[in-house]
């Protein structure tokens, strides 16, 4: 009996809470008030929290940036990507090599890492994006592993030991080396990522991705170049990951191939899928779950990964579209 109630949409308490939220946020004032409060809270947060908590929050912001990038590929364009950590690695190592080996200023390395991600994205995307179905998943999975193994075996990347001595970024004469600095840096980065995602989503390009996801042939008949539009998603998404990687390298000052394992690709993908593909608040929520659950469940040690297993199962059974809901079908505007 309880099971039936859960599936019937109208009686599910979760759904009604969400619906109420949607009505609440329909008013622009409420929306802005919420954003101001949330941003204000996060700005003062470092003053009232421990360094450890700040570290976790920094990690959360980092996840938001990277997962929003993956969301462009998986959520908006509907392409299953299983090797996203590779693009993250491309960014981190570009910055790492340029900074530790050539002494380049951190901020100057970012354009290079974007260019590197674009080249890698084109190399992977161009031959595979014209295919339908799951080929891309296999290719990206392979690319992820190839990248990691290549990094592990090249001299310039420092082999299995990795790179050390990546320089700290300097901003307005201040060397960013405190956790509080990085907290704010990643916070700003996350906000930029959200704004960019939002603007892309509500644009000609964002709609084109949605058209293709809904019906590839109809989209082509409407004059949308399916291959280049997908390639755009792939490259833009990869660039997000690379920028995230660059900042990651600057924060850690040392990187090694172990930071870019398949499991990281899986965690990024899980954050996107759990929260809700193609929905910015969903991705933020998913990132929170993926970052915070292991911290909360630290007590049970290695078994905490099990929690994700159960969570994913429950989500797949009851909310395949992700925790965050789709917009209600009957628009309140009407």
């Amino acid at each position: 009996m309880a099971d039936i109630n859960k599936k019937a949409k109208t009686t599910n308490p979760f759904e009604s809470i969400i619906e109420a939220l949607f009505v609440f946020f329909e008013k622009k004032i409420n929306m802005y008030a919420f954003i101001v409060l949330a941003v204000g809270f996060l700005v003062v947060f470092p003053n009232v929290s421990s360094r450890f908590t700040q570290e976790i929050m920094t990690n959360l912001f980092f996840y938001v940036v990277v997962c929003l990038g993956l969301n462009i590929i998986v959520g908006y364009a509907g392409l299953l990507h299983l090797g996203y950590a590779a693009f993250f690695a491309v960014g981190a190592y570009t910055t790492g090599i340029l900074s530790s080996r050539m002494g380049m200023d951190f901020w100057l390395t970012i354009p290079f890492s974007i260019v590197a991600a674009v080249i890698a994205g084109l190399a992977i995307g161009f031959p595979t994006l014209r295919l339908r179905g799951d080929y891309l998943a296999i290719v990206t999975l392979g690319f992820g592993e190839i990248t990691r193994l290549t990094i592990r075996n090249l001299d310039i990347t420092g082999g299995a030991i990795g790179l050390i001595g990546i320089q700290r970024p300097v901003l307005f004469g201040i060397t960013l080396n405190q956790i509080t600095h990085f907290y704010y840096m990643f916070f700003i980065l996350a906000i930029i990522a959200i704004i960019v995602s939002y603007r892309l989503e509500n644009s000609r390009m964002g709609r084109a991705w949605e058209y293709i996801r809904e019906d590839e042939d109809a989209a082509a008949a409407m004059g949308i170049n399916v291959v280049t539009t997908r390639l755009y998603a792939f490259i833009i998404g990869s660039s997000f990951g690379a920028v995230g990687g660059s900042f990651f390298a600057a924060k850690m000052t040392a990187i090694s191939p172990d930071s870019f394992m398949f499991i990281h690709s899986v965690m990024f993908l899980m954050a996107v899928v759990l929260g809700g593909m193609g929905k910015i608040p969903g991705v933020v929520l998913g990132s929170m779950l993926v970052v915070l659950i292991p911290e909360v469940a630290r007590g049970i040690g290695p078994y905490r990964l099990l929690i994700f297993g159960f969570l994913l199962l429950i989500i797949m059974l009851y909310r395949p579209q992700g925790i965050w809901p789709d917009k209600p079908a009957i628009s309140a505007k009407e």
Partner: protein
Amino acid sequence: MALLEIKDLTLRFGGLCAVNALSLEIEEGSIRSLIGPNGAGKTCVFNCMTGFYIPSDGEIKFQGQSLREKKPHYITYLGLARTFQNLRLFKGMSVLENVMSGMHCRSKAAFLTTVLRTKGQKAEERHIREVAEECLDFVGILDKKDFIASNLPYGDQRKVEWARALATQPKLLLLDEPAAGLNKDEKSRLIELMHRIRDERDITIFLIEHDMGLVMKISEKIFVIDYGVKIAEGNAQEVRDNPKVVEAYLGKEEEETA
């Protein structure tokens, strides 16, 4: 010169010849129909014209330019829009967003201007919206623009498809069975709409249709194909009187045509 010229178009699937040496011409500003029994290869002709199938042989020229080996999106860009036999709307999106898709090939905002929300990009977004609304108004469902496409009744979904095709600002509109599933009332409004599309928007119309009554009423010239071969062409009277057509299409009893 004809707006569209098809010369010796042949399409084979393995041993099956779906379209066989078909030639026809469509003059600018005309309404033309392609009819034929089920499986005669009508939709295949459309798919060849719009780049979804690559013809095995022959030539399709649109405004003197060959469409061979051109991708569907580029053909739409050149000014050849189509609707689908089975509705192919973007089901989960709003009616307005559906129609806005047609403007994609007439706009150009890319990554940087989108992220920076430049003046040009905002103006373009407004323009896309205005054109989409105008097209919805033209087919008469502007009041339903915020509905999710799949929640509309069938007749209205058809209108969304036309509006979407109009939004690509075509010179030639290909309608694949536009009257399928419509009632008598809706059909007469469809005929009126097609005339308005041609007269007010200067769009040439080429349609595939099963409803003989509608075809006879609207088209100045009809092409009849059977088994991929053109067996007749001419006006309604000529086609109706052609013994080959009677045999292939209307059957031996010479059915009444509504």
